[in-house]
């Protein structure tokens, strides 16, 4: 680096008004980029956290989501007692036939949203040890009782312990609140599977979640179940199923990326404008540097670097501005289950680095032409400029 960096830094400081105005434009763009990506990452992380690699999910062949799968009761009985399936202390197979229905609930802050009601059996809790009851008690089958996640009890009406809401043919009473932090269960209401089938007139289950004795048994079980023509099922590790669901973050990521790119074009032009003004005001300095023996390339690099430094100031501000949303909870619509998914924004070091890299790209794009103009000025003309 022939021309010292302090030359650029001090010039940015001297022209602080233009520096700040331009940096803010870049900061805004980087902040939007980081926030949207944090949202997409948070959503993905929620799905990835949900699946347990030890569990297998059985759905009807051709279904891509639990909500669109149907498995008849009689078929569940055909495979529930297979040897490959683990048994609990009481000797029962660790397999939970479940059903999902969508209901509509009113939000506390107005409007309403689709919420997933999951009908499970007692084994369902054994398969999901990370779900914990934090208030009240479990539901009792047959009494139209249910438990709701903490996020839902905080965001929706009639969802606190002791309150009731109408759904299907029943009026459901909330008996407990559960915590399923950072998983999609955090956006569900749980109750008894058979009661759900009855209240919503379903003759079938949606899926069966089960745990094989070990990994080898799991592989064998997948083969055995899928080979059985009568069952007509698809079996996959629960973790894989939820990984597939991360495609829900796709549209958000795309929209965010699109928005950031559009904004970055504006911000790059702002940087270009600022750099052109800077080159114009420093023409005689450029001439002087050339007379001292600095080459065109030195001048070019110096101004390009200054533009990048300017953008980095903006990038750093943008990253700082986005930090407060880290860990903030929100909800969005899942495009596979058409229900609300609650999740937290997740800002990582890597994401911040990407935000800064994005700023650098804007700085380079904004600086290329002004730096070229600076480097190409004939020495004598530059010296004569006032």
């Amino acid at each position, binding site marked *: 680096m*022939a*021309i*010292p960096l*302090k*030359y650029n830094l*001090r*010039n940015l*400081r*001297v022209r602080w008004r233009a520096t700040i105005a331009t940096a803010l434009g870049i900061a805004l763009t980087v902040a939007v980029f980081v926030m949207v990506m944090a949202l997409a990452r948070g959503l993905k992380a929620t799905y990835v956290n949900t699946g347990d690699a030890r569990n297998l999910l059985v759905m009807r062949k051709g279904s891509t989501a639990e909500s669109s799968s149907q498995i008849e009761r009689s078929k569940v009985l055909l495979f529930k007692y297979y040897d490959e399936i683990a048994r609990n202390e009481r000797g029962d197979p660790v397999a939970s036939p479940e059903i999902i229905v969508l209901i509509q609930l009113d939000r506390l802050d107005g409007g309403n949203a689709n919420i997933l009601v999951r009908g499970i059996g007692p084994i369902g809790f054994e398969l999901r040890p990370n779900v914990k009851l934090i208030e009240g008690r479990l539901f009792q089958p047959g009494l139209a009782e249910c438990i709701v996640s903490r996020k839902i009890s905080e965001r929706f009406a009639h969802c606190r312990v002791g309150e009731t809401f109408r759904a299907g043919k029943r009026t459901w009473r909330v008996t407990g609140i559960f915590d399923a932090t950072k998983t999609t269960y955090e956006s569900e209401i749980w109750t008894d599977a058979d009661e759900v089938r009855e209240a919503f007139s379903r003759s079938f289950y949606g899926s069966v979640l089960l745990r094989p004795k070990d990994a080898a048994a799991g592989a064998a079980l997948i083969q055995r179940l899928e080979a059985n023509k009568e069952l007509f099922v698809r079996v996959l590790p629960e973790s894989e199923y939820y990984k597939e669901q991360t495609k829900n973050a796709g549209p958000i990521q795309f929209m965010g990326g699109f928005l950031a790119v559009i904004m970055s074009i504006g911000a790059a032009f702002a940087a270009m404008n600022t750099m052109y003004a800077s080159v114009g005001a420093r023409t*005689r*300095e450029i*001439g*002087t*540097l*050339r*007379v*001292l*023996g*600095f*080459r*065109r*390339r030195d001048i070019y690099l110096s101004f390009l670097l200054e533009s990048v430094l300017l953008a980095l100031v903006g990038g750093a501000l943008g990253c700082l501005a986005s930090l407060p949303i880290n860990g903030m909870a929100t909800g969005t619509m899942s495009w596979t289950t058409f229900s609300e998914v609650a999740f937290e924004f997740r800002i990582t070091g890597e994401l911040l680095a990407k935000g800064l890299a994005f700023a650098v790209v804007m700085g380079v794009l904004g600086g290329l032409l002004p730096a070229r103009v600076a480097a190409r000025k004939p*020495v*004598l003309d530059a*010296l004569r400029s006032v």
Partner: protein
Amino acid sequence: MDQPIVQIRELSKVYRHGDIEVVALNSVSLDIGRGEFVALMGPSGSGKSTLLHIIAGIDRPTAGRCVVEGTEVGDLSETELAAWRKQHVGFVFQTFNLIPVLTAFENVELPLLLTGLSARERRDHVEAALELVGVADRMKHLPRQLSGGQEQRVAIARALVTDPTLLVADEPTGNLDAHSAADVLVLLQTLNRAAGKTVIMVTHDPKAAAYARRMVHLEKGELLNEK
């Protein structure tokens, strides 16, 4: 005189502004020896600055030759010229042309950044140059915190610090009051006499030119008889 350090033969420079041609230099021939202090004099538009710019390698002749220490300056590419300038020419401007955001020390250090000197060596050179021109006590000041005379001294230190073949000054006292101007001229004279520097100075002021050992007059792009 030994082999001249600057040899100018039949040098012409024509500027074109659309259809109009302006002859700035017309077939000028001149030799400048090592250790001379030459004043290039003449009224505005006489071509004295153009001649200086060509000698300093920041302008190119239209015809003729300008050889400085064996190098035909007009033949060099842009990049070669930049490298040549940093080695052979120390330029002093009428308007000082210090970089406003850099301190006196940093301004003088600038040309040394193009050399392979270590930070320590650079510091020694800069301090010596500032000492020589008498503004060592101002090295941490920014240009705007200096008087015109001090600024020009710093600029002379910057021109000297790489120990160039030629010290080239374009109206170095044009923006100074009489007192500061005399100081700067004495400094240039001292550098010439005590340190043996070859100095080429453009001026239209006979009082300034009187400090030089030799005066060369130009008028309308042509050399008049020397005094």
